[in-house]
């Protein structure tokens, strides 16, 4: 086959001045490397702790909490800024007294209905958009029109159409979720590589089966990002809407709890309500979305960010 070493005679590969190369050709048997020494030095404890994202985040939260407590004590004005201790006490009393859990369940109940309906509608839009060019244009135009419109701005109209009740809140929730989720899902569908689509069609998949079995999982990183954004939009819209007209059916949600306690100048309760909103947000982000992310996109090696 290809010519081996040419040896010492002068030629293209001969050494300089035509002298023989001092390196000899050889072939060697490999030694068993199983006994090669392995040296592992564990990192110091603080460095290992610092490498854990959870530890770093807990540290940040502790610093914030200490800052809160210190500032509130220094300010010494429980009407404007109660201490963390007083807030936690109010939170504990609210939870034990049963008022906060009731408010939370009202809020979450409405939220799930609105979020669920918004997500289902968003997928319907995205699927229609991906199947035809006209559908794409419809989605893009509607999103450009409605996505910048704050959900709260629709509230007066919703009140007029659906009356004072959960239906109005669900309406504005759908509006806040729909466009963000549809936009992300559609962007995800479009980013699915031509090869992946061709593979799916090669199996004889077409139409809704192709969308469900190929496009949906292939676009999942983008869809999940949309669901997270949608969740944040929905949560914030809900609290705002409840603040405006929360006590619709006699039992309001968390937003109404905050509003009511402000009127009664129960400021620690106001802070407890806000803290509850934050804690639920953190829990959903880290427990639900975090778990989904670990089990899907990260496991599949599909996550393109952070």
């Amino acid at each position, binding site marked *: 086959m290809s010519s081996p070493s040419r040896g010492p005679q002068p030629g293209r590969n001969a050494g300089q001045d035509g002298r023989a190369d001092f390196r000899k050709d050889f072939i060697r048997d490999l030694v068993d490397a199983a006994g090669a020494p392995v040296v592992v030095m564990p990192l110091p404890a603080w460095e290992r702790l610092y490498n854990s994202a959870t530890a770093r985040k807990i540290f940040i939260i502790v610093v914030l909490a200490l800052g809160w407590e210190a500032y509130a004590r220094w300010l010494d004005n429980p009407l404007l800024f109660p201490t963390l201790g007083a807030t936690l006490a109010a939170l504990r009393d609210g939870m034990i007294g049963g008022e906060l859990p009731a408010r939370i369940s009202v809020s979450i109940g409405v939220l799930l209905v609105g979020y669920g309906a918004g997500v289902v509608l968003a997928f319907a839009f995205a699927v229609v958009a991906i199947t035809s060019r006209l559908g794409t244009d419809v989605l893009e135009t509607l999103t450009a029109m409605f996505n910048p419109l704050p959900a709260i701005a629709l509230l007066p109209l919703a009140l007029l159409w659906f009356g004072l009740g959960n239906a109005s809140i669900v309406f504005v929730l759908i509006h806040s979720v729909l466009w963000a989720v549809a936009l992300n899902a559609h962007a995800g569908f479009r980013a699915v590589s031509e090869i992946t689509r061709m*593979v799916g069609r090669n199996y004889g998949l077409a139409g809704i089966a192709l969308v469900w079995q190929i496009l949906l999982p292939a676009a999942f990183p983008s869809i999940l990002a949309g669901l997270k954004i949608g969740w944040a939009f929905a949560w914030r819209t809900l609290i705002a809407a409840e603040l405006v007209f929360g006590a619709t059916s006699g039992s309001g949600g968390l937003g109404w709890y905050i509003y009511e306690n402000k009127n009664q100048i129960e400021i620690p309760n106001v802070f407890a309500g806000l803290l509850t909103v934050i804690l639920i947000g953190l829990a959903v982000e880290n427990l639900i979305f975090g778990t989904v992310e670990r089990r899907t996109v990260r496991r599949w*090696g599909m996550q393109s960010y952070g």
Partner: protein
Amino acid sequence: MSDLDTEPPTHNPGASEPTASLLEVRGVTLQYKTPEALVTAVYRVDFDIVRSDRYVLLGPSGCGKSTLLKAVGGYIRPIEGRITLNGREITRPGPDRVMVFQEFDQLLPWKTVKQNVVFALRAGARLGAKEANEKALHCIDKVGLAGFADVYPHMLSGGMKARVAIARGMAMEPDILLMDEPFAALDALTRRNMQDDLLALWDDTRFTVLFVTHSIAEAVTIGSRILLLSAHPGQVKAELGCSGRDEIHPLTGAKLSDSIHRLLFEDIREEREEAGNELA
């Protein structure tokens, strides 16, 4: 039909019914649209593939060989002419013609190696769960990846991904395996290995494969018949038989690789001369 029936005697030892074509391509012209123009990729191409062929489409880039393969896959409809498989015209993609691509994202990233093959068998070949499972493991074992069945594709090397794609293609037992430069994205050493392994697998089951490449060496190694295409638009330049070794070809009187090189090069030289004449 073909006027080059002077093939050397060592070909196609497995073909029992030498005259029946599995795949017939007759006068096929293919066009595709770019936003600016309508491009004719392939012009009136004819060829025949019989069972157990290792049929290679070889040509410079721009000869439309990949477009032709996609047409056989059913992704593109010919403007004129027809493509038939077992006498039935090809109108859409289907599991009787499995594609193997060069791109690494041909494996579904949300499924493990085994799930990828099982999914293909269940969705495409419509096998039951148990049967699909057994067959998938068997084929994964055949390409030497038994230890990686439960691993996700992103943890595999490029060569291993190509092996999974081949295992999937073989498991589905298509009438013809369509390979679109499957080893082009691999490093040279891995590519050599994959070529040898593909031939070893072929020795085992004698599947029919239509193989697209732009490498003369790969065509000579892989092919039992080689169709040479010229560029812009793709037209058939020659069809040569191949024994698997780079021997003197009776039709050209030169070594096969040299013959191919000359046939492809001749074209380019002519084109350059024409361009030169136009300029003059």
